[in-house]
């Protein structure tokens, strides 16, 4: 039993971090949350650990997003007071290109509806159709339809973006 969880940890930890990262957009935070997920799995011993792990990860990411919104709101409430902006560390040149590539995919991902995005990310994290269906409340038969739409939209949005920037560059 312990071995099951350990095996799951070895095989899915990276996938869970990546899944969380695509939601919180902070590598360190994603790792913290992923560890939290497995610590909880160890004390809860769920029946279907793989699906459970991703369900909890999705919940944590959602809470995290809410907390972030709340923090922002509080800080803007106090706008009248002197608030120093957190300093941004300048990125090295080679990471800039990577960041741009990432940003363009991120933007394309934002074009999807939340549900389509969730299902695409769960699939990419390695969940099966039945697991995705169980977690999202979708019928198993509808997972394929949703994935078909999500993939098409992601690629289209990304291509459109790139052709836009291409035209802009040509004009300037």
């Amino acid at each position, binding site marked *: 039993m312990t071995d099951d969880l350990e095996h799951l940890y070895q095989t899915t930890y990276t996938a869970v971090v990546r899944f969380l990262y695509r939601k919180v957009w902070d590598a360190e935070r994603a790792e913290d949350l992923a560890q939290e997920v497995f610590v909880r799995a160890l004390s809860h011993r769920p029946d279907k650990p793989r699906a459970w792990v991703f369900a909890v990860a999705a919940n944590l990411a959602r809470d995290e997003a809410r907390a972030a919104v709340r923090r922002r709101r509080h800080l803007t409430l106090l706008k009248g007071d002197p608030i120093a902006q957190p300093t941004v560390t300048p990125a090295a040149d080679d990471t800039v290109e990577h960041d741009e590539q990432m940003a363009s995919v991120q933007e394309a991902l934002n074009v999807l509806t939340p549900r389509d995005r969730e299902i*695409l990310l769960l699939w990419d994290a390695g969940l099966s159709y039945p697991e995705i269906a169980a977690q999202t409340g979708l019928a198993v038969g509808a997972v*394929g339809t949703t*994935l078909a739409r999500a993939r098409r939209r992601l690629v289209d949005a990304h291509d459109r973006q790139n052709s836009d920037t291409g035209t802009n560059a040509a004009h300037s």
Partner: protein
Amino acid sequence: MRHIPEDELHAYLDQALSRNQCVEIESHLADCHSCQATRDGIAALRDRTTALLARLAPPRSISPSYESLRRRADVVVSARRRRMRAVAWAASLVVAVGLGYGASVLHRPGRVTTAASSTSAQPTTFAAKSSDTPRTLTPLTTTDRPVRQDTPAPAPRTAESSPPTVRTANASPPTADAAPAAADSSRAHRESVLAVLDPVPAVELTKLDPPRESGEEFGGMWRTLSWDGAQAEAGKPLPHIDGLPIMQVQVQRAEGTRPLMVVAQQLTSGQVIRTIEGSATDVSQLLSRRQMSDVDSVQLRGTTRVADTINADHAMAMQLGDRMLAITGDLPSDSLRAMIRRMNAEMRSK
């Protein structure tokens, strides 16, 4: 002959179909060029999606060992048990303090007034609701709260019997003198507040020692300090609200970083206000963790949450450079906002 719908081809390529469905699709594909082309298009689309998403990956890092996570999980389980015990202790402390304070008010009214007036600038006592007919006399000892050394505290009286309290396994044996009991319950009280404040890294809970007045280093651990000790440690005035009794001062300090301070104060209505000051990342993490664990205890454990005294919905934070000042408490956000503004103005004027 019907062509294969696109979503079915997605499911086929995703290997999500039954053996029979696969056979059906494959036999159709063998003869139908149009569907073959569609399949190839979808296969390419699938690959592109995977490639695009692969860009959205965090920088690779070393994953912690499974063993270390197991240890953390063990600690969480035992901390959960401790927390439940701590709640019982906190409740008994409230009773003890209430009775004791009531007794001292009844028996030594003059003395108490002197103490209160001479220390009006320094927050010293619990705002206790007097109980009308206390049956036992419980002394208030200075271990209960941070009191300045020169403050004339209500003189401890020897009690006939200890207050009705529960004992933990490691508590000292009961004696006729109630002072050890008060010390025990104050520790339990600290533990309960700790559990409320810092539910995630539960390691601190299990390793928590009785308070140390000296400036010993505890990387990443919470320490409870006296008011003077904390002030000495911080080397500057602590963030607090003037005029409210201070219940507890907690400090966490990692090496070479700014200490994270939490000052708990009580309003006359009994609500607890916590002022948190530290580096912006620490404070916001503390706030967000607290929120997370609230949700956790409600949703996952299905039990009532321990953190009832803290509702992170009622938190107000202000960032000044890399420092962050936050107030939490179950108060309307307007009040919190006014408090934090005033505190900020005071701290800047000093």
